[in-house]
């Protein structure tokens, strides 16, 4: 099986350690991943801000880069949801505008092959215990696109529960949005910040040391809020938790 890592433009540029963790983790599980260097961005920010036509060439590019792989894995719930949920819609809309089914046909093959990381681990690799070790108290925030867009369900929690040394504590109001929302964080900064603050406060109330999520975009917003609030919490992507083993000791955080 040829598996490609779709790291997303945000992770590639700002969170390379998440990408390295995914590679470490999948390699340890016997999955060989390729990183097609021509990949860029799924077009979500364009699409969600109202620039659907600008998102089309990016989606096309995605399909060209990843079309030949058997599976595409991404450590981002929201970019995964863009491909799975919204690419079909891009195709439909192009057709409705009288531009034929070309775009739909181009995008269709990558849609069912795209998996968010925890989905890939549980559904495709078929593991919940990935042999990880992480001696910290962790609370998990299910991001909106992972939760409602992709329907990740309890997959991330099952993976976390199997991690040695990890104490998982429940996050009150977990299903509530953290307030990131892409350009929403800029366009409605006050509401966004209020939502982020509430999320950080409720994570603090659990007594956890680490706030974990399967999406660095939300963690960027929450991490930035934690810094300003001088919170003792740390934002950590789930891939980085799952990548560490006892042999690494504390090296991998």
């Amino acid at each position, binding site marked *: 099986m040829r598996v490609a890592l779709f790291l997303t433009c945000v992770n590639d540029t700002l969170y390379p350690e998440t990408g390295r963790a995914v590679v470490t983790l999948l390699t340890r599980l016997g999955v060989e991943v390729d990183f097609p260097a021509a990949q860029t961005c799924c077009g979500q920010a364009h699409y969600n801000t109202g620039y659907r036509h600008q998102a089309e060439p990016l989606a096309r590019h995605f399909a060209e880069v990843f079309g030949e792989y058997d599976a595409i894995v991404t450590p981002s719930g929201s970019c995964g949801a863009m491909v799975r949920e919204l690419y079909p819609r891009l195709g439909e809309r192009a057709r409705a505008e009288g531009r034929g089914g070309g775009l739909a046909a181009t995008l269709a093959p990558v849609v069912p092959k795209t998996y968010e990381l925890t989905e890939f681990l549980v559904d495709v690799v078929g593991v919940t215990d990935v042999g990880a070790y992480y001696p910290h108290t962790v609370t998990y925030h299910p991001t909106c696109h992972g939760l*409602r867009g992709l329907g990740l369900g309890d997959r991330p929690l099952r993976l976390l529960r199997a991690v040695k040394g990890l104490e998982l504590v429940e996050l009150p109001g977990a299903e509530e949005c953290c307030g990131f929302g892409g*350009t929403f964080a800029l366009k*409605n900064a006050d509401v*966004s910040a209020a939502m982020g603050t509430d999320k950080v406060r409720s994570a603090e109330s659990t007594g956890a040391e680490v706030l974990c999520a399967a999406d660095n975009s939300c963690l960027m917003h929450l*991490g930035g809020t934690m810094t300003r609030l001088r919170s003792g919490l740390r934002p950590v992507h789930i891939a980085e938790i799952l990548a560490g083993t006892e042999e690494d000791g504390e090296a991998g955080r």
Partner: protein
Amino acid sequence: MSGTFVGMPAFPEAARAAVADARLRGNLRHATHTIRAKRARAVAEVSDWAELREAGKRIKDHTLRHLDRYLVQLEEKVTAAGGTVHWAADAEDANRIVVELVRATGESEVVKVKSMATQEIGLNEALEAAGIRAYETDLAELIVQLGDDRPSHILVPAIHRNRGEIRDVFRERMSDWGRPAPEGLTDSPAELAEAARLHLREKFLRAKVGVSGANFMVAETGTLVVVESEGNGRMCLTLPETLISVVGIEKTVPTWRDLEVFLQTLPRSSTAERMNPYTSTWTGTTDGDGPTAFHLVLLDNGRTDTLADEVGRQALRCIRCSACLNVCPVYERAGGHAYGSVYPGPIGAILSPQLRGTASEIDASLPYASSLCGACYEVCPVAIDIPEVLVHLRERVVEGGPMVREGNKVVLKPAKGHAAERAAMRAARWAFSRPGALRTGQRLASRTRRLHPRTLPGPGKAWTATRALPAVPPEPFRDWWRRTGGGKEGGK
């Protein structure tokens, strides 16, 4: 729409003030969280909720597709039952019709049962201008009216007020409108309800004209339906001699059988009740029982234009249950007033810019009043994909495009003020279409990372005002991958 909201600031500014109001945030948080939990329990009791939701969606879609036919049928049946049907293309039309109807009775006051359609058109203001006083009789509407306030929620228009504030409003203002509040009124719910009851009873018994909305109109029999909790509506519907109902054309359902679905989903979604306490239905007039004259004003006011939009028309499925408001994290912080419309929350963010167009600043800002978290879509009992419509309307704002206004096809220009963003989006698209350009940008960012400011100018300021920026790492992933051959050459 209503004159009351003209000149409202755009959503982000209005929301900023609300976010800073600790009491408002407290009131809203308490109210929405309570009802949210109750709704979830009430919905979980029904084993076939998913099917009911799908059925509601289909019934509404079918009706909207054949709305012309069902409206004609409705008119025939209402007329045959002794009522009179009036067609109102817009707010002005509707207000003129109602004012003339009230004038013809020779009365100078009317009692009203909560009706969002009449708020949408600013009927109370139009009546006042014509020298007619309108008394709101829904408890929450009464609070809003006495407080010279605006509604901020579909179902609980005074949700932004707590008990203490309501007691103060009653004590200070009831005497201006009729029977004063009882001496020594406290903030106990029972006392507040009793004060309202006494105050309103006087009006019910005196009024000769009632004005209502309706939750549903059944085309096969010409029957109107109101569901409510307090019974005040029933007083308005039965005691006056003349009843005028102003109803949006999208409230039509074909048959009584269709009601079965909505009478299950509406109360559970809105008040978390298995069944609402009062369901009133009326068909034309009946000799010796209820009003002797019945007028139905069918309101368009942007609805057929909305119907012409393939993506946006699903907003007309809305049964105004308000579940989307109660679950919305943005509504919870911003409050209903920030939406500048009688329809606040997620549904308001998609309905108002469609009914009114996106020309004004507030209407152009509403499609952005969401983080697209999808909670509203999940709870909506008629499965309106609100995030989808929001994104669709964002597109209309930033890119313009074809749409229908007042029945005519027009091509909308992009709204002003998005030029910089448009340029940035184009530039990003350009770079993202060229992996080489992306890499150059990343390297530049990495190399200059020590120079990056802690606060950003321009739109970025909004981010750094409350949140720290992530540090740019020394090496983007793609460079690491190349340098280490995908991690094989020990580049950790």
